Each structure stands twice: as structure tokens, then as C-alpha cells.
């Protein structure tokens, strides 16, 4: 995207790109590496999730700055927690950029979406009645601007001053608003469906524990 604008971040050598990819991949696995009751199911589910959202991002590339990943990261963070949300963000950024162009900016995109996922896990987006769509919409608007700002830092390579950077941000405002509009549309159309998709089915042990615990309280 930034090359298209004529603005570049630092240009990485092939070795540096390899190191970068290894670090990103390593951090994603580190985030995911923790004991789980259903390791195979959880892994398959995460793979499907990452691949499908990455594919969606690639398919939607012709639409300028319409980013389905932002809302997805927000909801994954809200439903699956900060660790898996951040891992999801890093993996989606890496895989989709294999097709859309890898580079220095991948780090910022991965970090930007990871921060959105973490914010999703911390914000009260889920209430006792389920997903609060109004809050998700508000969060997705803020997330659009935050992500775009964060990724814009990738052009700072020492040749651009503060004033020029502000000019650069100013030029991008229409695209930020489009990102915001895209997020809102994704949130209202697919937010609840995607959230429910992410909802974990309780295991038999968890159901049994809940029942016993309930009886204990009753008793």
C-alpha cells in the first residue's frame, strides 16, 4: 500500500525479512502455546479462522482500506481472549501479506491488529445477554483510526520529519473514514454471527462441574 503511495518504510534485505517472519511466527506460537482441553480441535479451529479471514482480506484487497481483519481481531479478542486474539492478528497479517506484499509494514499491521484484539479482550463488549453491538460499533470506529495511525508509523525511516508525517496522516484521512465505514458495516452485518461462531462449546467435564457446583450451592 505504501509503495503505491510512493512512500516506503525501511527496505529489508531477504535475511532481515526471514528473521522478521520467524519472530512473528514464533510470537504467534508462543501466544498459542498453553495447555488446552482440546488441543486438536482448538488448533484446527484457529487454523480455519486464520485462513478464512486472511482469504477474506486478500479477496477484499481491491476495496481501498476496507479491512475485515480489524473487526475480526476485535471479536476474537473479546471472545477468545487476548493471547489467542493477538496470535490470530499476527498470523492473519503474515499469511495475507504473502499474497498482498510482505515487508516492514507487516510488523506494524500485526502489532496494530494485535493491539485491537487485546483491546477487544479488555473492553466490556460482552454482557450477560451476549454481544453488545453498540459497543462493538463504537470500538470498531476507534479501532479503525488507531490501526491506521499505528501502521502509519512504518513509513518513519529517518527521511520524514514530524511535519511531513502529520501531512502524510492528513492525506490519509479519507481512507481512515472508509476503514471506519467498512468496520461499521462488518460489525452490524457479521458481528453477532462471527461472535457466536467463536463461542466455545463447553466440554462434558465443564458441564458436569457446573452442575455439581450448582447442586453444591443449592445444598
Amino acid at each position, binding site marked *: 500500500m505504501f509503495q503505491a503511495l*510512493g512512500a*516506503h518504510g525501511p*527496505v529489508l534485505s531477504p535475511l532481515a525479512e526471514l528473521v522478521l517472519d520467524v519472530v512473528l511466527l514464533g510470537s504467534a506460537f508462543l501466544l498459542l502455546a498453553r495447555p488446552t482441553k482440546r488441543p486438536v480441535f482448538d488448533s484446527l479451529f484457529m487454523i480455519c479462522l486464520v485462513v478464512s479471514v486472511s482469504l477474506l482480506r486478500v479477496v477484499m484487497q481491491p476495496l481501498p*482500506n476496507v479491512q475485515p481483519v480489524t473487526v475480526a481481531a476485535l471479536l476474537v479478542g473479546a471472545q477468545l481472549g487476548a493471547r489467542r486474539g493477538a496470535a490470530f492478528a499476527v498470523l492473519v497479517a503474515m499469511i495475507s501479506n504473502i499474497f498482498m506484499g510482505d515487508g516492514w509494514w507487516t510488523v506494524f499491521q500485526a502489532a496494530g491488529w494485535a493491539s485491537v484484539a487485546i483491546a477487544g479482550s479488555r473492553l466490556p463488549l460482552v454482557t450477560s445477554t451476549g454481544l453488545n453491538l453498540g459497543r462493538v460499533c463504537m470500538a470498531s470506529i476507534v479501532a479503525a483510526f488507531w490501526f491506521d495511525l499505528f501502521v502509519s508509523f512504518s513509513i518513519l525511516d529517518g527521511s*520524514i520529519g514530524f*511535519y511531513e508525517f502529520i501531512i502524510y496522516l492528513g*492525506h490519509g484521512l479519507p481512507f481512515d473514514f*472508509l476503514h471506519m465505514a467498512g468496520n461499521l458495516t462488518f460489525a452490524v*452485518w457479521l458481528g453477532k454471527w462471527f461472535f457466536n461462531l467463536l463461542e466455545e462449546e463447553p466440554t462434558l467435564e465443564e458441564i458436569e462441574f457446573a452442575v455439581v457446583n450448582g447442586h453444591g450451592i443449592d445444598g
Partner: protein
Amino acid sequence: MQGRFPALLLLSLLLLPLISAQEGYNEWEDTNTFAWEHDFESGFISTSPLFTGEAVLVRTSGNGKPAVTAFDLEGDTIWQRVNNQSSSNDMSPLLHVSAGEGTCGVWPEMVVVGWTDGRVEALQPSNGELLWSAQTEVAGWGVTSEFALDGEFVIIPTRKGIGQYCLADGEQQWWSQTGLGWRNGVAVGDTGYFSGDESGVLWHVDRMGVTTSYPLGLGKIRHPPVFTDAGLIVHAQGVSSSTVAVFDVSNGSVSQQLPAGPSPAKPALYGSFLVTGDSSSVQIFSCTVLCESVAQMPFLTNGELRWLDDSLIIAPLNTPNSNWGMFTFDGLDNLSFTELDVGIYGYGTAAPLQFIADGKVFTVFGNDQSLLRVFTRAAEQETQPQPLPQSQPSTDFDWGVQGLIFIMFLLIGSSTVLFLNGKMEWFFRTSSLFFLIIFILILPDISTQWSELFDEQFPVDANDEQWDDEWPDAWLDTQIVIIEIDGEDQVIGGLTGHDTVYSLTQDACEQLGYNLGVELTELGYYIESINGIEGNGWEYFTDGSKGVVSVDSAAVESSTIVRWIPV
């Protein structure tokens, strides 16, 4: 409730024929047939060709040899006059002069040609032989303006002034200094001549050469003012917009200011109707006591506009891979648009030429692609125009566009119904999708306008790119491009008339003989390679400032230095 959605669907289906009816029936393409073409292979056709009664004259310049070439009606070359001293783009329109006599002598039929090396030549139309020539001053470039006739004189706006020359022998009667001008044509009135300059000053020069200045402060005045019943029309070019100003010559003041888009085209008058164009639209003004905008159509044109008759206007579309636009005006307030595909695609500023000869109507097209194409039709059709068959379906029906419009109708209709029924969640869904589509469609225009506005409000001071004393003086105040190839600067200067980094770079690469690899991305044009060198991309600097928008959105001034560096 259950019946409302089918009703809405039916309503939308009923609206579909209304949409398709707006698609213009292209009578012109059906009635005109391709006659011949000539490929100059290089150079630009920046101004309208000229018909002298026997020959079609075309001027070409740019990266090819600067020349005026004459063709017969069959497309065979009759003669060609080359001026290798004219190193920049020649944009001064050719002027056809009938034979006559005056106090300063007798003159034959001639074509007057202005060159960017400052030379003005009178050529014999039949064989291209030189009748006389005159040298005008050169400041970066020489003549770029449109001449005018005033009795036995030709009035020539030069780079720094206006001169009056005798048609019989080309002798200068007088020359008066005005402001620094660029493509600044002249209008002849009862009291003398009017012309503008780059500082936004309108100049009046009487027939003795006495000047009076009127600083309008509305922007650059680059086209000949136009006399109308409402006053003298000046289309002044601002940074991100323009103003159609009505100037009252009786008291030297501006009586009306009408807003228009950026980079104005050359206005053209037919009766009381004035057509203007710019980077955003084509507008029709009715100018009687006052000028009033009566019709407008989105379009991007920056060159010559041409009325072919009282209802038909043709304008060159000035975008990559573009063509011409044909506008039909009903004389009241309706303006319809049809794209005219003449088989030449690319940037264009030259209006087509239309004339009748040998019982046929000839229409001649040329643009920056150095290709001249001629179409003909029987002249009877000119005198007995056929009514437009309104019911005939257009062959240009664009299913994609119509489908999108249909979906938009569905979404806005659904949103309204859902809102009235209190189904707020579904209302938000349909309305958000509606606004998202709208936003995506208008984003390119908004982004361009916003960037221009932003640059205007927050200019970047850049002094890093300095003038090199080794460059020729002729490049002073012109556009210069530096391309770093294998660590060495390849420089080309003396370029003029470009509005964007993209257009300027294209011209520079053509002149340097480099291939330019371009990719259209969602954010605009991206330069992939120059002279086959891709590297990790290319980045550009305008006057030392790093480019932060796509090349087709990056504006350049008349003396900008653009540097390209491989990453």
C-alpha cells in the same frame, strides 16, 4: 408487512428502465465511419487540427520532432514543416488567415504558427512554404498562446507581453509588456485586446499598445477571455478550484464570480451559451444580462472544448486511457453525456476538428498518443439531422453499473422501510452498506480534492532540490525531471503544462526513451519500473519533498523539479 418487500422489489424493477433511458444513444458512432488515420509514432497533438479548404493541418510536438503536417482528404501527406529549435511542447493553436489587404500591405491566405522557441511563422497552406517569420522573446519557453486576428494584424501574446504584427510581412507594430503568461490567449474587443497572466492579472492593451492592468486575484488566467452579453468571461485557475468570473469592461470590475472545479479547460461560446470544463465537470452557462449556470455534468477535461453545432459539444477526456466525451444540450437546462470511442486512448487536450468537404462531414481527432484519426459521414445528414431514437436500446449498456445502481435503490428503499417499521438492527445493516458503497465510489474524488485542499492549507517548504547551473537556461521556470539510473542523474527539463507527477514523469520518460512500468492500485498509479529497472520500487520527491500520495494525485507547479530514486 409480508407484502411490502415484493412491492419494494417491484418498485425498484419499475425504476430500472428509467435508469437505462439515461444511457445516451450514441448517434455519432452509428452515423460516422472511420476514413483514415496517421500515426506520427511520437509526439503529442495538443491542439485542434485545422482545415484550410484543401488540407488538414496538424501540429505535433513533445518527444517527436516539432512539426506542422498537412494531409489531403485521403490522408496522404502533402507537406511537413519541422522546427527542430522548438524544444518544448508546442501548444499554440494554428491560426488560419484568409487573403486580404490593409494599410501595411497585401497578404495571401496563410497559416500562422507559434513555436516555443519564440518564432512566429506564416506558412502557405498549399505547400508549407514560409511567407514571413518573426522572433518573439523566450523566457523558459516562447509562444504557447492562442493568437487572434484584428483586421490587418495578428495579435500575439508572447511570454511577457502582447505584440501586434502586420499580416502582410510580419513586421511588429508594437509590443507591450504585461505579466508572465502561459498559454494565455487574447480576446479582441472594441477597445483593444484582453489577456491574462500567471499572477491573475487581466490586461487590457489598446490598439496603440497602451496597457492597463486589472489584478483580479482569482488565480491564473491561461485561456483567452470570452466576450458575452453579460461581460467578459475569465475562467481563472486557483490551487484546488477555479472561478468563472464575469468582468465588466465598462468599469473594470468583476460583476460575478461563479465557482468551478480545478484546472479549467478553454471555455467556448455558442450564441449566449458558454461551455466551461475542468477536472470535475462540464458546465453550461447562459450569459445574457447575467451569467447563470444552467447545466452541469461530471467530467474531467482540461483542454479545448468544441461546439459542433448548437446542441453538441465534444471535449477531450484528460485521464489515462481516456477518450472523448460528447455532450448534448437541449438549449434549456438538460445536458446528457455519451462517451465517444474513436479508437485513440490516452491523455487528451485537443478538441476535434469538423468540416464539410466533397459532400462529406469530416471529423478529425488527435491527442497525446500521436495518432490522428478521421471519420466521415454524408453531408446530407448534417443538414437533416435524424431524431434520436429514444426507444432504441443502447449498445453501451453497462450491466455492472446498472446492477450497482439497482442494488443501491434496493438498499435505500429497504433502509427506509426498515426504519419506519422500527427494525433498527436491519436498518443499520442496510444503511451502513449503502453508505459504504457510496463512500467507496466517491473516495477517489474526495481523496484528490482533500489532498489538494490539505496541500493548500499546509504547504511543505522544500528547498532541497536546487537549480543546477549546468542546466540550460531554457529550462528556467519549466518542469524538470531527474531520474537516478545506476547512480547517475538522468535529467530532462524544459517540460511544460503538466499538472501531476504522473503526467510529467510520462513525458520525461518518453523524451529520455525510457519505458515506464505503471500499475493501477486502489490508491492510484504506482510506478513499478523505469527503463526496466524495478528494484524494490521507486519513490519520488517534488522540489525535495518526499511524495506521500500516488503519482496521479501529486500536483506539480510550472517550475517543479521531480526526482525519482530507485529504492
